[in-house]
């Protein structure tokens, strides 16, 4: 636990007083954000499609077809978009971070960094955390947009739902709060996933086996942490938006 606090303090110090470089952050945004787009887009699209299909099958029994896209839109914005994008990113990015930093740790590359007048937090950890925290909300927005579009395509062009009423219901029921909730969740999830990936990588031991364990631990821990944090964020953000 003390190591976790030490890393949190180290990251905070590095953010304000550290010797980090913008070029490292931009490079990480490319690696994390740009190269995660395909998996996030595919996940968002199929989530939207299956949600619209299932909702339609049930709503159709009660003649509520035109509410189908509204349900998809709200669910994608505030829950499914951010959570599924985060789970995909924790599998792709979190695991990669743990593996990369873990390999560097066991092959003395991190010690080498330290002897080359470079603080590992400044060079390895902070750019990854900042980049993921920036990239994640963008990825969430993409997942939401693609999920809604894919659902709209399925609902209107294949299932034959009335587009005008569906669109009107979707716009009426989906509030800006739903979108903001998704974006805020994305920020927290990005920070959480990258922190877990970096922590597991830096605390890696026992050679190749240790790297494997760190990678697996990262995916499991980050996935569970995302699901748990999502619950608490849902409660907190709903309270905040209710007051506002």
């Amino acid at each position, binding site marked *: 636990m003390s190591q976790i606090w030490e890393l949190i303090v180290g990251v905070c110090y590095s953010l304000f007083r550290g010797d980090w470089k913008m070029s490292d952050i931009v490079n990480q945004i490319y690696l994390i954000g740009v190269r995660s787009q395909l998996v996030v887009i595919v996940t968002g699209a199929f989530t939207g499609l299956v949600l619209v299909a299932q909702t339609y099958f049930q709503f159709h029994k009660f003649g509520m077809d035109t509410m189908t896209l509204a349900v998809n839109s709200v669910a994608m914005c505030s829950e499914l978009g951010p959570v599924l994008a985060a789970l995909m990113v924790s599998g792709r990015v979190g695991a990669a971070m743990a593996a990369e930093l873990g390999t560097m740790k066991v092959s003395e*590359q991190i010690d080498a960094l330290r002897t*080359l*007048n470079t*603080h590992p937090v400044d060079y390895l950890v902070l750019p990854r955390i900042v980049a993921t925290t920036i990239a994640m909300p963008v990825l969430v927005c993409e997942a939401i947009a693609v999920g809604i579009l894919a659902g709209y395509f399925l609902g209107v062009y294949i299932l034959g739902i009335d587009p005008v009423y569906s669109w009107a219901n979707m716009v009426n029921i989906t509030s800006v709060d739903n979108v903001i909730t998704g974006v805020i969740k994305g920020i927290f999830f990005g920070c959480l996933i990258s922190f877990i990936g970096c922590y597991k990588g830096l605390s890696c031991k026992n050679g190749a086996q240790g790297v494997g364990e760190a990678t697996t631990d990262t995916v499991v821990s980050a996935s569970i942490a995302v699901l748990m944090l999502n619950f608490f964020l849902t409660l907190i953000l709903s309270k905040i938006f209710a007051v506002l």
Partner: protein
Amino acid sequence: MIQVKGLYKSFGNQHVLRGVDMQIQAGEAAIIIGRSGGGKSVLLKHLTGLICPDKGEIKINGIDIVGMQERELLKIRREMAVMFQGAALFDSMTVGENVGFYLQREGKKTAAEIAKAVESTLELVDLRGVENKWPSDLSGGMKKRVGLARAIIHNPSIVFYDEPTAGLDPVVSDSIDKLIKRICEVKKVTTVVITHDMRTTRTVGERVFMLSEGQIYLTLTPDELFASKDPKVYQFVNGISEGDDII
């Protein structure tokens, strides 16, 4: 100058260093010898501030580094360079990027100046035209040379070598030994070599510290070491495994 007083370090129940005392003068080429697993690399990591001791004092150029925060240590490490046993090259970077890493991070030189410095430092370690190769494309000896070039590009005053000839054939080992000697003379640096290679000890060393049972057992010149009749020294120098395991 490096001064070590009463250095203790344990990992669990394993007492690796049990009161190491030593002093290495500026510009000196010191060799630390001892059995495998005897704590040589742990001692080197203490000298470079990579590990904090349980007890003791380590002064680098008069500054006690024990208990220093990592960021304070970074300033002290500007005067140091370390060549790691496995070279520890950054495998996501080319040779040129590895060697120029320090200068690039420092941000005081232009890309052209860094490229020139990389070229001249690689020439110093007898490597040419390898800037665009990847560490995975290099042989063990070349990796060590690149590791050394990366370490010395910023002109440190102390260079530490951790088992510089481990895993290399005798010919490459000899070339590495001569390279260490040359860098010691050309750059006028304090050199600390951790090894159990007797040829390196003879070629590079001016003074030899023998680490045994977590302490400096003897300090001698290489000539004294090879002429010594002390049972521990004799057994180690001649690689005799028979009899009592006395080292």
